[in-house]
């Protein structure tokens, strides 16, 4: 069987696929309606507020994710909209222009199910490497802190 739930990274492009057991008109609807999208978009434990959503080329979805004691501003600018088969957008966050990326989501009908393909294109491979290093450093830092805490725990016993 072909693998419809996949992830690949080639150069500066990450590609996710997922076969969803729902007609694509419905999948399109839950991607483009603020009432639906808030039910699944946010990471676990996050809630989502939509300031504006107008799924038209050149228009935006302006939203805030609330979680981990913070508000995270996000802006998605739609570049191509072909209902119900293709959605392209530019994603901008608080981190700065270099970290913005372009996403193309396609919705394909497969015997009543929907094959979703999400292609995220980052500025460059270097940006991805930089992010990897930052996260690695962050994780290493966390481990160091955990070890330190453990060590201090032993000392005070």
């Amino acid at each position, binding site marked *: 069987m072909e693998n419809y*739930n996949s992830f690949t990274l080639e150069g500066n492009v990450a590609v*996710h696929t*997922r076969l969803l*057991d729902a007609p694509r008109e419905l999948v399109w609807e839950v991607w483009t309606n603020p009432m639906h999208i808030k039910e699944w978009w946010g990471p*676990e434990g996050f809630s989502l507020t939509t300031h504006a959503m107008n799924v038209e080329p050149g228009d935006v979805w302006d939203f805030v994710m609330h979680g981990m004691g913070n508000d995270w501003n996000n802006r998605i600018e739609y570049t191509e909209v072909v209902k119900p088969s293709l959605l392209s957008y530019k994603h901008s966050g608080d981190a700065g222009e270099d970290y913005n990326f372009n996403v193309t989501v396609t919705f394909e009908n497969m015997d009543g199910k929907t094959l979703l393909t999400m292609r995220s294109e980052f500025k460059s491979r270097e940006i*991805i490497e930089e992010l*990897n290093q930052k996260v*690695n450093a962050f994780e*290493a830092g966390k481990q160091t802190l955990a070890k330190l805490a453990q060590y201090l725990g032993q000392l005070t016993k």
Partner: protein
Amino acid sequence: METRRDVFQAIADPTRRAILGLLALQAMTPGAIAAKFDSSRQTVSKHIQILTECQMVTQEQKGREIYYHFNPKKLKEVADWVSQYQRFWNQKFDSLENYLVKIQKKKK
């Protein structure tokens, strides 16, 4: 639902983490690994299979025996941003999947 095999799934289970801990010290045969656990040999071999599918361990044929080696490269991936991005979207797609099931049930 199809099971997805990734590094995060591999390390989510305490037995699998224990197996990785053993293999990090030395390469072992399936029999030697199973002997370290109370669980049945079948259960342990299922865990080894999952670890192999996620490439957390590699196999090496030595004569008649198969030896399992720990693959540290794969574990490092857990800390990579790319893996986090992958996991982030896998979770979103899981939640999208669940939501689609929920609203389609309501309609029926």
